[in-house]
């Protein structure tokens, strides 16, 4: 143990410094510190950030920290009789014990009266929260996660201070979009996921976002709605996703649902777009993609390519991830598409039906090669080219190598077209190391004549292997700088 000069005791720090340190700790850790000394006892029980969390345990296990929390809360009023300000209050519980649950309600209502809160995270099924929310006059950030079965009522309120709202696992009959825009007039960021509506509701299943101040909107897994309308003048970033990544068999069930959804966007100031999956029925006004800077499209799966074409003509950063090969073939078949604005391009493909066709044939790789070739030729101002491996954790080895084998084919076949002009930076994001990838790196090194920099991002366990391969490449040629980032 190292020596510390006398006087350097943490006890000599001012309250505000210690409280700031506490804000980086969770309830369990803060609670432990109470027994350090008298001063810490006082501080810990009046800390401005309170995290009442259980570890994200399996909800079925009844590992409940409630008694601990109740003890903690009981010490509070003795120290600070008046309402005081805390920056962050987080309460999360999977508690299934009825006695505790009834206490939770009482306890949280007590919190409303005692504290003035900036950020409130409630990862807990507590429908009564909506009645009490308007009492938090200074609340800026609200996160709600209400995994449960009961429909919640969303009463309209006025909470002008709220800037950020997360809603997850909320099931309701009320119109979420209207509720948000009426209740929170200053809202800047809205994150919705797993919002469900009553299926037998007589109301139209429509989600309309019209909050005029909104700058960031994210919607994920909100597939119960038939119509989604986004009309926001100031929106800068939009994330839209319906399908569930990672499971192909889910994909196709979801695809059916996606096809039924009608999406309408009007957001003239949109700068960044992240699109996961895409409905066939998408509608946007002509101003919407004019200011777009970055577009990321994953799990693309739709017949009409107009969205993709318009996006790619607009953006400088394009990321095309988890794109199936059939989709790419469609793009390949449209020679009119030009992507002259794209400076940075990132691609990751998988074979559409690898679940049913586990062994790709040679011609499959040829297809990928053809498509890549067409892409690279049309991306006439490309500076950075990035290959991403392994779309899925559980995919088969052949599928993981898909993009690399395809690219190798491309390089092998196009003997007449040997130079990829303009590309200065080459990046590889890898989850493991393949022979084909090494081959590809070697080939691209010779094809990309203007290449200045190459970056490999890979898991740290492959460090030695990468070093070995790079050594082999290094001896081959050139003053190219190669960066390796292990993660």
């Amino acid at each position, binding site marked *: 143990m190292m020596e510390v000069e006398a006087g350097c005791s943490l006890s000599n720090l001012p309250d505000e410094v210690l409280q700031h*340190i506490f804000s980086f700790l969770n309830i369990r850790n803060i609670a432990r510190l109470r027994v350090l000394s008298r001063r810490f006892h006082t501080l810990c029980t009046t800390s401005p950030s309170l995290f009442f969390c259980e570890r994200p345990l399996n909800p079925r296990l009844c590992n409940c920290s409630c008694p601990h929390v109740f003890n903690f809360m009981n010490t509070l009023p003795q120290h600070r009789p008046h309402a005081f300000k805390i920056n962050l209050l987080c309460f999360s519980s999977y508690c299934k014990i009825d006695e505790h649950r009834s206490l939770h309600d009482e306890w949280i209502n007590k919190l409303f009266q005692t504290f003035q809160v900036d950020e409130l995270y409630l990862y807990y099924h507590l429908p009564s929260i909506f009645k009490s929310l308007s009492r938090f006059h200074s609340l800026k950030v609200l996160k709600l996660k209400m995994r449960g079965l009961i429909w919640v009522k969303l009463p309209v309120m006025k909470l002008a201070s709220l800037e950020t709202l997360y809603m997850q696992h909320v099931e309701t009959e009320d119109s979420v979009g209207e509720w948000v825009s009426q209740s929170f007039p200053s809202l800047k960021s809205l994150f919705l996921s797993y919002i469900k509506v009553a299926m037998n509701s007589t109301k139209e299943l429509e989600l309309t976002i019209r909050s005029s101040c909104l700058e960031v909107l994210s919607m994920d897994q909100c597939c119960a709605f038939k119509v989604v309308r986004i009309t926001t003048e100031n929106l800068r970033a939009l994330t839209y996703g319906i399908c569930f990544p990672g499971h192909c068999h889910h994909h196709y069930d979801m695809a059916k649902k996606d096809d039924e959804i009608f999406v309408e966007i009007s957001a003239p100031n949109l700068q960044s777009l992240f699109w996961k999956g895409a409905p066939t029925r998408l509608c946007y006004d002509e101003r919407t993609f004019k200011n777009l800077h970055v577009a990321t499209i994953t799990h693309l799966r739709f017949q009409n390519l107009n969205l993709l074409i318009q996006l790619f003509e607009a953006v400088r950063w394009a990321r095309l991830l988890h794109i199936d090969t059939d989709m790419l073939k469609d793009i390949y078949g449209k020679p009119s598409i030009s992507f002259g604005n794209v400076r940075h391009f990132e691609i990751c493909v998988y074979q559409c039906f690898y679940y049913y066709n586990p062994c790709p044939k040679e011609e499959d790789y040829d297809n990928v090669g053809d498509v890549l070739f067409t892409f690279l030729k049309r991306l006439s101002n490309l500076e950075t080219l990035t290959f991403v491996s392994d779309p899925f954790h559980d995919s088969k080895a052949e599928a993981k190598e898909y993009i690399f084998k395809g690219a190798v084919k491309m390089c092998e076949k196009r003997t007449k077209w040997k130079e990829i002009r303009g590309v200065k930076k080459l990046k590889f994001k890898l989850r493991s190391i393949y022979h084909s990838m090494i081959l590809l790196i070697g080939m691209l090194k010779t094809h990309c004549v203007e290449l200045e920099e190459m970056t490999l991002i890979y898991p740290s366990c492959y460090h030695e292997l990468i070093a070995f391969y790079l050594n082999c490449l290094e001896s081959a040629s050139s003053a190219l700088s190669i960066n390796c980032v292990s993660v």
Partner: protein
Amino acid sequence: MSSSVEAITVLSSDGDEFKITVSAAKLSKPLNWMLEDVCFSDDCDEVPTIEVNSKTLVKVIEYCEKHAPRANSGASDSDAEELKKWDIEFMKMDVKDILFHILMAANYLHMEGLYDLACQTAADLMKGMTVSQIRKIFHIKNDFSSEEQEQLRRQHPGCSFD
């Protein structure tokens, strides 16, 4: 303040002189005020003293010089990533014995980034330690009477005192 001055001289609490560039000094609010109020030129006699010891001031200035270019111009994501890595390394280096001083200095100099970083480091250190280890490393005296300790034990049966 004349715009030609690029670096200023400050004194540590131990009386040593340190040079700090103007852009780096701007990371600290008090230093920034000083820059506006006082004339820092070579013919100016006044050298401001900073109530931070030399050992700590070296680290603080190192941090400022590293972070200044980004704070003044805004930077790309890759820069931010690189800085983050640098921060982690910065806090790794035998910093435990001067962490206390860095916390005080960052608070005194109103340097948000360094303050957060130091607090985070202190918090991370605490996470992995037992109560008695925390007492030892951060020099905290257990000033509970035996009755109080007994009472705490009863109130919070889950808590460990050692």
